[in-house]
């Protein structure tokens, strides 16, 4: 499994994920399926919480996305979700909209990187 240019590598580190799955490709695939299904849903949740001005909801969902991204070896998503979590914790909701756009961009990059590994997921 190889990943393209450095920008893409940063979005997804499949070797790291496989290492955590002790080389079990099927299990890694299963986790990716779980992750992508949940992440798409969480992106929508973030939008809804932002519209409602619900800082706690934003913080909670962003925290979960950050943790899940770390587990799946997606450092770019982890970083962007972490920034939203921090902003929500500080009640700086006015800056979250921009961050949310960056998170969506990173999600697109992650999806590309994932497709390049030959491990496309059901939901991507």
């Amino acid at each position: 499994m190889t990943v393209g240019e450095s920008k893409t590598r940063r979005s997804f580190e499949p070797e790291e994920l496989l290492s955590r799955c002790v080389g079990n490709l099927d299990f890694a695939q299963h986790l990716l399926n779980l992750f992508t299904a949940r992440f798409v849903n969480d992106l929508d949740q973030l939008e809804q919480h932002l519209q409602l001005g619900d800082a706690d909801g934003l913080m909670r969902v962003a925290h979960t996305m950050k943790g899940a991204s770390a587990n799946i070896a997606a450092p770019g998503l982890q970083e962007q979700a972490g920034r939203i979590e921090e902003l929500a914790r500080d009640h700086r909701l006015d800056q979250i909209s921009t961050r949310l756009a960056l998170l969506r961009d990173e999600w697109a990059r992650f999806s590309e990187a994932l497709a390049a590994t030959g491990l496309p997921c059901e939901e991507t």
Partner: protein
Amino acid sequence: MKILVVEDDPVCTEMLDYFLRQSGYDVTLAANGREAFDLLRDGDFRVVISDWEMPEMSGLELCRRIRNRQFSEYVYVILLTCREGRGDMVAGLNAGADDFLTKPFQPDELNLRVGAAERIVKLESRDLLIFSLAKLAESRDPETGAHLERMREYCRILGDQLSKTPEFRDRVDADFVRTLYQTSPLHDIGKVGVPDAILLKPGRLAPEEFEIMKQHAAIGGRTLDAALQAHPRAEYLRLARDIAWSHHERYDGKGYPRGLAGDEIPLAGRIVAVADVYDALTTRRVYKPAFSHEKAKAIILDGRGTQFDPSIIDAFLAREDDFITVKESLSEAPDEEMAAIPLGPVSAG
């Protein structure tokens, strides 16, 4: 072992569930602290692995509630943290967490942390079991209250001395001495099977009564052997069984219940034999006054090579002063005082 995993992230949940099951653990999943607490009240989980931040009830709050609730058995809690959350560990420890696992984790680290948790909860079970059995033994022991305490101290001294000799250095290490210390109070556990009329008889036992009294060694040995068969890896049960079964054997083969001789007698049994007799000699019994250390020593030396293993007697002589210290610090009353108490008829026990 049953493990409760509390995590709201499905990816992390799946990883924990998969790797813990692969390692042979019985895993139950909860999505938040509240659900976990309900499961804890109804189940018998010994280890909880919980995420820190969750909806409904956080891992920290779950941890606090577990500690406040004081379950019948200790619940070992591992909190999941993210790398930047390591500074919160003090808060986690204050809430009662036992360990932390940083996300994302490697399966090896998960196994190591859970393995440590398993060792600790088993240790607690072991100590509780030994303590409970020792209390049971004590309740059926007509001798003085501190008998078991002195016994285990004498055993520890003898074990410690033997560990320094070339002959026993390879067999008697710190772990052996520690386990000997913990399990020696179980030497008379078989007395639970001896009728009160015989066990508590204030006078000399008739020959047939003495035969029944002697059965306590085999009763204790067989009882602990049954427990050992069910848990063959529990070395402390093996030692406890050996002690209960063999502490009345004699080095010359004339003891009971099996008439074992010399090295056929388990080492722990040979050690406890000396400790038990020394304590019987130096404390008052219904049939005799408390003998002085010198008198007890003379009687024990007289049994060297016949009643007792000569190596254990050498260890006793080398640590004579320690025996005296224990005898004096854990005695109920001065020898003279006890010697002045009118004696009943001689009994066996």
